[in-house]
Every structure is written in structure tokens, then in C-alpha cells.
């Protein structure tokens, strides 16, 4: 549901065109969603579905990080930590407290979101470049703690035997997702669509405007009445929560989670997806994630060259199209502000 504001009669010619442009956009997205939904029925190859699911999980992460880095301009190099926290929260709730997947989603999101705010509080007092390093530090600290707190987190071997989701379907009874590919595909699709919807709503709201104002010029935003700290924390909380949900889905799908999956490389990959897609752009984050997320599979034969090509791609893209695929290009120099 989109809301359009009534324009006065004195509206210039462009307005009418904008109305149908939005309708066309909605149509395109609906068709895309339908295609995605139909895919497992048309092409039920489990391997391909798994690849897509992984890429979609990346897209979910990218959407979350987009709120922090893309919209608000806070450079975060430790995003994998929230992913880990979500995964471990579900893992621990399931293994220790017997909680099933669906009721664990909210706690996973909440805990990860709280960490986002908690880490943000001290971190945001710090200048832009240093903030990046602090977030990196936190990310690594979380990972190392997960590796070392053996009796809680299972140490380097992680948590095993986490339950898969089960869903009651009319006519089929209770279905266990177990290791089938299609259910997770649909689950992740739904999560991405929800997160995208959330992002759209937020970015078009007073909150989204405040975030972008902070990104563009923190000082001016502050003087315009925006409490910079509060909104940055909000962004980190939201972004963290989304990563938490992604983490829970990941844990439920894998059944086993180890700290190695949540390293700095992952944080960098998600960041690259957001930058590639264009800072702040929601469809950019999704497309960037799908592109970079499926790349490892497309480069199957070039296993060894994968990271090398990835690094080269990052360098070249920054050189050739710094604003990413769908980002706003620099129109006039942005004023110096703390956030990168």
C-alpha cells in the first residue's frame, strides 16, 4: 500500500507522470515477486534453490546494513556480529530452553537489536574513521568470545542439532522444513520482502529523512533539530534486529553454527553489497546482494580465484562507479561531517 499526497492544482506537468511511474514500479515489483514465488514450482533444482536462498539471506543482511551505512552514513565494519548474535540466540534458546523457531524470532531480533544499540552508545561518540575501527573491533570481539566461551557457545565447534522450523499447513498438517530447499527459499523470500517493505516505509518517513540528513551533513541536521545520537542508535538497533532475524533463519537452516561463519570477511561482503547497490537504495541493496551473493557459485570452477576477483571487483567498482548501481551521484560536495 503506497500513500500518495494530494497535490495542489498548481502542480507542474511532471506530477501526472510520476503517478503512473509509481504504478508501473509497483507492477514490476509484483511481477518480480510472483516470479520468485513460482520458481521452486517451475525449476525445483534444490542446489540452485539453496544458492538463491543464501543470496537472499545476504540480501536480508544488506537491507539491514543499508539502514546503518546507506541511509544514516554510519560506517559499520562489524555487522557480522549481529548476524552471529541472532544465530546464537536462536541456537541457545532452542537447545537449552527448547524454544521452537517461530517464537524465537522476536528474541533473536530483540537481542541483536539491543546489541546494536549497546555497541552504538559508546562507539558513536567517536569520529568517523575511528568508529569504523571500533565496530570492527566489536565484531571481532564477539566472534572471539563465541569461540572461547566453550561451555556456553560450544566453542570452535559451535552449536549442533538446532531444530529446523516446522509449519502447520492446511491439508498437510505439521511440516518440518528439515533439509528441503524450497521451504527455506520461501521463508527467506518472505523475510526479504518484509524487510524491504520496512525499509521503504522507514526511508520515506520522518525517520528516514532524519537519517539521510545525518548522512549528508551531521552538523546541519543537528541544528535543524535532529537528535543525531538518538537517530544513529535507532538505525543501529533496526539494522541489528534485521541481522538477528537473518541469523535465526541461518541457524535454523544449517542446524549447526560455528563462530567461523561470522567473521570480518562476512561484514565486508555485506558492506560491499550495500556500496555496490548504492548507499541508501533499497533495491540496490537487494540486487547488489543477489549479484555478489551468487558470484561464488558462478565462479565455482575458479574456487581459488574467488576472493582475488572479489577484491579486484571492489577496487574497480569504487573507481568506475563510486555511487554504486542505484545510489545518488554527488551533486555538489558534501559538507565535512563526522560520518564517512
Amino acid at each position, binding site marked *: 500500500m503506497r500513500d500518495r499526497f494530494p497535490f495542489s492544482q498548481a502542480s507542474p506537468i511532471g506530477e501526472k507522470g510520476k503517478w503512473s511511474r509509481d504504478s508501473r514500479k509497483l507492477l514490476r515489483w509484483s511481477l518480480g515477486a510472483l516470479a520468485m514465488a513460482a520458481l521452486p514450482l517451475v525449476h525445483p533444482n534444490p542446489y540452485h534453490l539453496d544458492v538463491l536462498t543464501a543470496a537472499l539471506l545476504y540480501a536480508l543482511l544488506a537491507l539491514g546494513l543499508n539502514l546503518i551505512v546507506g541511509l544514516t552514513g554510519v560506517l559499520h565494519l562489524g555487522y557480522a556480529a549481529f548476524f552471529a548474535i541472532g544465530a546464537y540466540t536462536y541456537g541457545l534458546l532452542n537447545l537449552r530452553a527448547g524454544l521452537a523457531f517461530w517464537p524465537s524470532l522476536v528474541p533473536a531480533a530483540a537481542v541483536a537489536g539491543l546489541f546494536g544499540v549497546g555497541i552504538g552508545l559508546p562507539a558513536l561518540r567517536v569520529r568517523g574513521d575511528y568508529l*569504523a*575501527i*571500533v565496530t570492527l*573491533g566489536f565484531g571481532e*570481539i564477539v566472534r*572471539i568470545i563465541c569461540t*572461547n566461551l566453550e561451555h556456553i557457545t560450544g566453542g570452535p565447534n559451535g552449536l549442533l542439532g538446532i531444530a529446523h522450523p516446522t509449519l502447520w499447513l492446511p491439508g498437510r498438517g505439521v511440516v518440518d522444513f528439515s533439509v528441503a530447499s524450497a521451504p527455506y527459499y520461501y521463508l527467506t523470500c518472505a523475510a526479504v520482502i518484509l524487510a524491504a517493505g520496512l525499509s521503504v516505509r522507514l526511508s520515506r518517513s520522518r525517520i528516514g529523512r532524519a537519517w539521510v540528513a545525518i548522512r549528508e551533513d551531521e552538523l546541519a541536521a543537528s541544528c535543524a533539530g535532529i537528535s543525531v545520537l538518538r537517530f544513529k542508535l535507532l538505525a543501529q538497533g533496526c539494522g541489528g534486529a534485521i541481522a538477528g532475524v537473518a541469523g535465526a533463519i541461518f541457524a535454523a537452516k544449517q542446524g549447526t553454527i560455528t563462530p567461523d561463519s561470522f567473521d570480518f570477511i562476512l561484514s565486508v561482503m555485506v558492506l560491499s553489497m550495500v556500496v555496490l547497490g548504492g548507499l541508501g537504495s533499497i533495491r540496490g541493496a537487494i540486487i547488489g546482494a543477489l549479484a555478489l551473493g551468487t558470484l561464488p557459485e558462478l565462479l565455482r570452477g575458479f574456487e581459488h580465484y574467488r576472493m582475488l576477483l572479489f577484491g579486484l571487483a*571492489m577496487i574497480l567498482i569504487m573507481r568506475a562507479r*563510486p555511487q554504486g548501481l542505484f545510489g545518488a551521484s*554527488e551533486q555538489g560536495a558534501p559538507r565535512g561531517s563526522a560520518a564517512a
Partner: protein
Amino acid sequence: MSPLQLFLQQLANGLTLGAIYALIALGYTMVYGVVQLINFAHGEIFMVGAYLALTVALVVTGAPWWLTLTLCGLGAMALCGGLGWMIERAAYRPIRAAPRLNALITAIGMSFVLQNVVMLLYGATDRRFPALWPAIRWQWGGVTVTLTQVLVWGTAALLMVGLQWLVMRTRLGIAMRATSQDLRACALLGIPVNRIIAMTFALGSALAAVGGMLFGGYYGTINFHDGYLTGLKAFTAAVLGGIGNIPGAMVGGIVLGLLEGLGAGYLSSQWKNVFAFVILVLLLLCKPTGLLGERVADRA
């Protein structure tokens, strides 16, 4: 071993680590001083330096050890210096005007490239580092000091004194310091800032290369993944001493090395790495200007 002896032993170990960190930290701090970039790829340069020294050592055979050592050192310095210069020229200079996020991503990408090139060329497993000097050890009141450690301290000290001389007493050094204070003014005054910046990268890389060689000699094995962790710790050291502050990087490196050495000796070595990160985070939160104060250009 008596408690005092244990302490002195850990001190010696820590100092050795610290000297290596200091050499790498210098590169971070100099580069940040001139272009305000956290050169993520710098840790990999250190790693490349180690591998280059290894390669030179494999090529140069039949010479007395001190000659081999010198050739390895100089060779690694020259090649890494050139590499640092090239990287600046090819990857960072073209995007100097772009937002800093872009430069950071480029640096991260560059670090991936370097890591993986080395992995492809030399393999993913640990490589044994050739013994570039005899394994002599001295007993000194119950504390063992090896030639390795003496060499590390000596080389690091020599290079640091040399750098300090260069920065304080030569025209290049003055130009470097001026550029780090106000790049635009320097450019307007006719100082070849591009060349100065390139030289800064080259110099930092050369020092890191020596650090790599000493690292290899100290630990006996090297791995393409060493750059990331050691680089991060060295960056912590640079921030600890005050980013942009050259003596600060030296002090920061030594302090961090001592902290890590003593920590590993007295506490668990498993949590050793968390140490560095925790120090880094606490530092940035509480005293981001570091021990000796940062030296960065004022931004409008």
C-alpha cells in the same frame, strides 16, 4: 625460574613483538597523517615482505649469513616499497577526491587481492621461514636472550632512528610533515604532493617489509593470513601512540607488544587476541588521541 626471571623473559619477548609492531605501525601512521586513510592493505604488505624475504633467501645461496640477511632485508624493502608506491598510484590516488568510504572499501579490496595473490603463488599452508641467522642464545642471569631478539631490537631501533632523522632533518621529511598538516597549502606552494604521498606509502611499506622479515625469523613460519591479524594489532599500536604521530607509533608498538607478551605469559594465550581488540576499542572510546597525541590535519 624465579618470578623476576619470568618477568624479564616475558619482557624480552614482549619487546621483540613490540619492535615488529612498531615497524608496521609506522606505515599506518604516516599514511594516515598525509591522506587520512586507514590503509587496510598495509598489514598485507607486511606479509608480502615476509614472503619476499623468504624468496630472496631461497635464491641467494652460499653466502655468509649476514650478507644473505642484508640482501633479504634490502630486497624486501625495495620490492615492498615499490609495491606500496604502485598501490597508491593505481588504486588510491585516482579516488582521492571521492568520499572516504570508497577509499576504505578500495583498501579492503586491495588487501583481499594481496592476500590471495600470495596464497595462489605460495600456497595456503604455513611456509617454513629459512633461518637467516644462526640460532645463538645467551644466558643472562637465568634469562635466555637469542640472537633473533637482539637482531629484531637492533634492526628496528636502527630503522626508527633513521626514519626520525629523515622526517626531522631532510627536505623530504619536512615536505612530508608539511603535507600532513595542510595538503592544499603545500600543493599551492609548489610542493610535489603526489610524489610526497607516494614516497610516504613507499617508506611505510619498506619498514613493514623489514618487520615481515623479522617476524618470519622470529616465529619460523609464515602464512598468507598473518597480515590481517598482525596488521590490526599494529594499527592498534599506531592509534595507541596517537595516529599520525611518528614517535607515537614507535611507542605504541612497544607498549602493545609488552602488553601482549606479558598478557600471554601471565594470562591465557587463548585470549591473547581479544586483548588487542579490547585495548583498541577501549582506547578509541576513551582516549582516541592516544598516548602522545594525534597529529592530523585540521578538517574544516
